[in-house]
């Protein structure tokens, strides 16, 4: 079984449990969209729109932030210490039970 569990707290505070495949080169933004959660992913995953910004609520080891992601987070709104762009978080086995909250819509 190559699926992992991801918990998403939506903008109304509801918690969703998602089953995410680790073998399809998906990222967190894409998993949210696949479950029809209100994540736009406007730029398609290029770290260029910040519509997939989320707050990391669990302390999983995440991939290091790229220059592009860091620059986008410097420009967008509602940014917190634990902000990341969902499109820059590949779904990997070590992210099982990751818990994230969707940032407000921009």
């Amino acid at each position, binding site marked *: 079984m190559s699926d992992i569990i991801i918990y998403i707290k939506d903008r109304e505070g509801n918690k969703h449990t998602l089953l995410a495949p680790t073998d399809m080169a998906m990222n967190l933004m894409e998993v949210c969209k696949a479950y029809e959660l209100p994540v736009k992913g406007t730029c398609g995953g*290029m770290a260029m729109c910040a519509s997939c910004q989320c707050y990391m609520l669990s302390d999983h080891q995440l991939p290091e932030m790229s220059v592009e992601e860091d620059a986008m987070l410097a420009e*967008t709104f509602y940014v917190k210490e634990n902000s990341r762009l969902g499109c820059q978080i590949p779904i990997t086995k070590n992210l099982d039970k990751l818990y994230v909250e969707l940032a407000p819509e*921009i």
Partner: protein
Amino acid sequence: MIQTDILIIGAGPTGLFTVFEAGLLKLKTHLIDALPQPGGQCSEIYPKKPIYDIPGFPEILAGDLIKNLLKQIESFEPGFTLGERAETLERLEDDTFIVTTNRGTKHHAPVVVIAGGLGSFEPRKPPIAGIEKYEDKGIAYIIRDPEVYRDKKVVIAGGGDSALDWTIFLASVASEVTLVHRRNEFRGALDSVEKVQELKNLGKINLITPAEITELHGETELTSVTITKNGAAPIQLEVDHFIPLFGLSPKLGPIGNWGLEIEKNAIKVDNSYDYQTNIPGVYAIGDVNTYKGKLKLILSGFHEAAVMCQSAYQRINPGKKYLMKYTTVSGVEGFDGSKKEAKKETVQAIY
């Protein structure tokens, strides 16, 4: 009034290719786009990114795809209304349409096709309480006439190229320029960053980082802003103008109020036939439409453009016979008098 056969809203790859497909059917086209240049997202957001799923191109930069499309449609002489957003759609008694832009430019056509992608690109507005109240009363997201700022106190927010460029430009126009950015680092072009540093060292501008504008003040017009610097007490700064420059993001915008059937921020169309919307004569193609099984891919937009143009031909020329042709057979006859076609085979006898 601009007159055309097919009025295309959106000059992204799908809108541009519509010009070609319409041209093969001898239909004239005109494009409207909110951005100042054609290409949509490909030009605005990711011109340097490679695309790998355009059939026949193992790899092509988005910007080059647009260049190629512009070359491909050149002989069909499309018209362009750029830098203006399609604002209203009016249906006339004879079932033709008038589309008016935010600048008041009017376009008349029997067929309208919306190829608007994710919508028109509009400035990102920072979430500061009451910001709408001061729009055009001290707050502007786009600088149209720099003279407005002559001898005024201006505060600019943002860390990208436009924030840096306008800071540099307005330093010699305004009486006081303050640049506020949430980080100490700026991601703009190196020479712009260096220039801003130099202006700051010379005392020509004020630079406040890492900080944000958190409050706006003024009875009817903006008179001051509150700047909150990390770890310091907020300061109030008297200003005449506040220019937030946080880039652009696409919004469906006025199209959403045209009486079209909308689902999840996209326009519902009849995909089993011709990508027409619930308003006969108005089509929607490319990323802006939705139907069961829709794939938001450039190649889907190209296909939808071809199908849609055949239907538009019938609408514009009711009852007039036509059979789809292959360009390999019939070539491409431009409206500029040019003709591209395959070289004729020659037969020579040997005696």
